[in-house]
């Protein structure tokens, strides 16, 4: 008891200022929590139950939903396996992960989808166990490679699943799914492009350096909404008439613009990493007889990327949040649907704040998962 009291005194009542701060802080927390709790309890959450499918997959027709379920199950299984294999599993973190992934799951399950959900959960648990067991076995390297390759081919496979057997056209993809897909494409395409740009900006070829710098500064000079509009109105007039390029639909153009935009920001981050590598590394590799290209690929780049991983992951998170800006192209992403529901559906008139809260929650969950991954990678690489 005495220890508790002294702890309280130490943490909260250290000095006069501390007392004031603690009281203000407590009042503030009380105010926020009470508003939040009364809001949660008093609002009508049937909004979500009715509009689950709309929010998650947009305007995809009912009969194509199996594709979304397949992608979702593949991603979940892969994610649980990776978590089991690479992350440190203790009671506290496992409870955290289970809670985190369970809350949105519970929100989006109904009796129709219960079978799907159970199936996915069982598969996940099986793979979780497999991943956990193989962490320390001799198959470690093989399993590790399999998991990494699976992550890389996940995106093309998703596209395959969405398009196979006469899939729905791209403009019908919507909801949360399109946010995730746009973010994934922007990251996958923007990352190698960003590396090239960073190397270009740091290179000694004056022309390449000039062009890279110009590109990065111009892209970073205007807000993303301006670039997206440019892609919509101006880009089609500049595309050549071959390969059906002038007929690209709006979703593909959004992907292109997001990738180019992401590449500029990623390039800046990597450039910072490149600058922090001591020049001795480069000199040593030349002394060993490597040429410039090998030096870059095998010595400089791996170290540079390793150093800036936390910043890169936060850039990825920013890109993911920026996919909500495609509302300006009338792509029905999650945010646009969240805004249209209170307006178009009679039953939910005026429930804009609830709708928006669900949208925010979904974005928040994914961002949180990404930043947790970043923290774990940091710890593993001992940064």
């Amino acid at each position, binding site marked *: 008891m005495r220890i508790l009291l002294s702890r309280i005194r130490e943490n909260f009542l250290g000095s006069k200022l501390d007392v004031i701060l603690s009281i203000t*802080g407590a009042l503030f927390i009380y105010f926020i929590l009470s508003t939040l709790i009364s809001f949660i309890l008093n609002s009508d959450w049937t909004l979500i139950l009715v509009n689950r499918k709309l929010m998650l997959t947009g305007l995809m027709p009912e009969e194509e939903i199996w594709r979304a379920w397949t992608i979702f199950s593949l991603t979940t299984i892969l994610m649980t396996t990776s978590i089991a294999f690479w992350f440190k599993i203790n009671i506290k973190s496992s409870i955290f992960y289970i809670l985190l992934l369970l809350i949105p799951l519970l929100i989006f399950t109904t009796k129709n989808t219960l079978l799907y959900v159970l199936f996915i959960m069982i598969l996940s648990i099986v793979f979780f166990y497999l991943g956990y067991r193989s962490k320390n076995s001799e198959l470690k390297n093989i399993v590790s490679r399999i998991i990494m390759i699976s992550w890389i081919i996940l995106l093309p496979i998703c596209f395959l699943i969405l398009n196979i057997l006469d899939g729905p056209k791209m403009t019908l993809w919507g909801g949360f799914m399109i946010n995730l897909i746009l973010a994934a494409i922007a990251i996958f395409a923007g990352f190698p492009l960003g590396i090239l740009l960073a190397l270009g900006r740091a290179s000694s070829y004056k022309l390449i350096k000039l062009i890279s710098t110009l590109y990065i*500064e111009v892209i970073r000079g205007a807000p993303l909404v301006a670039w997206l509009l440019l892609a919509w109105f101006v880009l089609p007039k500049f595309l050549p008439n071959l390969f059906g390029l002038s007929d690209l639909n709006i979703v593909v153009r959004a992907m292109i613009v997001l990738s180019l935009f992401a590449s500029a920001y990623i390039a800046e981050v990597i450039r910072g990493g490149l600058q922090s590598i001591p020049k001795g590394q480069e000199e040593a590799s030349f002394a060993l007889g490597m040429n410039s290209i090998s030096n870059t690929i095998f010595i400089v780049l791996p170290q540079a990327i390793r150093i800036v991983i936390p910043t890169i992951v936060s850039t990825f998170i920013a890109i993911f949040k920026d996919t909500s800006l495609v509302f300006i192209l009338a792509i029905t992403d999650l945010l646009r649907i969240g805004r249209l529901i209170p307006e178009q559906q009679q039953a939910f008139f005026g429930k804009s704040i609830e709708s928006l809260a669900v949208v925010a929650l979904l974005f928040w969950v994914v961002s949180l998962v990404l930043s947790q991954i970043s923290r774990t990678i940091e710890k593993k690489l001992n940064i």
Partner: protein
Amino acid sequence: MPSSLFTQFKSEDSIKKKLNLLFRNRIFRRFFIQFVFGIFLLLLFFYIVDKALNLELGFGHLSSRAGFGLSHTFIIDYNSNDSRWMGYFAGVINTIRVSLVGIVLATILGIFMGLARLSPNFLINKISTGYVEFIRNTPLLVQIIFWQLILLQLPHISKALTFGGLSVFSNKGILLPIISSNENGSLWTLILFLGLIISLILRSRLFKYKEEHVDLFSPNLISFFTFVVIAIISFFALSIKLSPSVPEVNINQYGTYIQSGGFILTPQFAAVLFALVLYTGTFITEIVRGSIQSLPKGQTEAAMALGLNSYQRITLIILPQALRSIIPPLTNQYLNLTKNSSLSVAIAYPDLFMVSRTIMNNAGHALPMFVLILITYLTLSLVISLIMNIINLRVTRIGA
């Protein structure tokens, strides 16, 4: 090419050997690569220019009558009879206004929250952590819409909250009392601002002078006195009359509530401002926290050993050193804030992006408008970077 290479070149007979020799030479190789790259770029450039000339270019349409009204005009007096250039300019002023206020408030918030993040007080620490985690991971657009909806919850103007009759809170805006002046008011404010800069420069000069020649005057007093003199002289020269302006809500003959007087904070401006400040504040918090944590722990320990209390420790030892390393990432955040102000297109705050969209819709000509938008944002970024660079140079000067 150097002469040795040239003679070697001539001495080799087969083409293959000649090419081999050329490409082995580093200088030639570099030149060749850049040459090929340059040709490629030129082709691309001509292609783009060729396609661009097919579009309507030119800014002639911007001189014609605007025809649309704007809900927020500041400094300049815009109405729909002015040209579209004036409308665009009004939009630019709106962007600058929200960005400037946003930058100042976000920095203050960021510094406070950054310090709170490192506080030993458990509650304050967790509040700051929660703030960062929640606001940072939600898209900014969601937050802007959220604030707009929240501000709509304020009471209707007929039942507005007035605090002692001094201010008015309603869903049409927040009005606060302010001191206002007659016509030359903004000129006088400008003169006051210049006077402040002059007296601050004078102060630093006098301090330097005082170091070398020990005298008995106080630089602070002298510079303050100078400032007051400038203010008073300009006050009478411009014949300023100051009067307090208290907000009022009147009903005109048709039953419409008219707000007048005071300083109005419209819901649109407030929504964009709050969202931008809170969002950018999280990033500034992390920057401040990172830079304070990167200071050697010895500084804190030495300060405590010297008997400084925590307020002195923070303001005299920690912050001045931490501020040195935060300027570049801070500049980045300021630029982000300015560009993020373009999201006010979602609610009815007419910043430059929204005005240009209206013009684009009324008159077409998308490409020239885009170039204009691009140039405007680049110029704003340049100005901010320049100012921050000057501050950076001053702060990182050894012993500054």
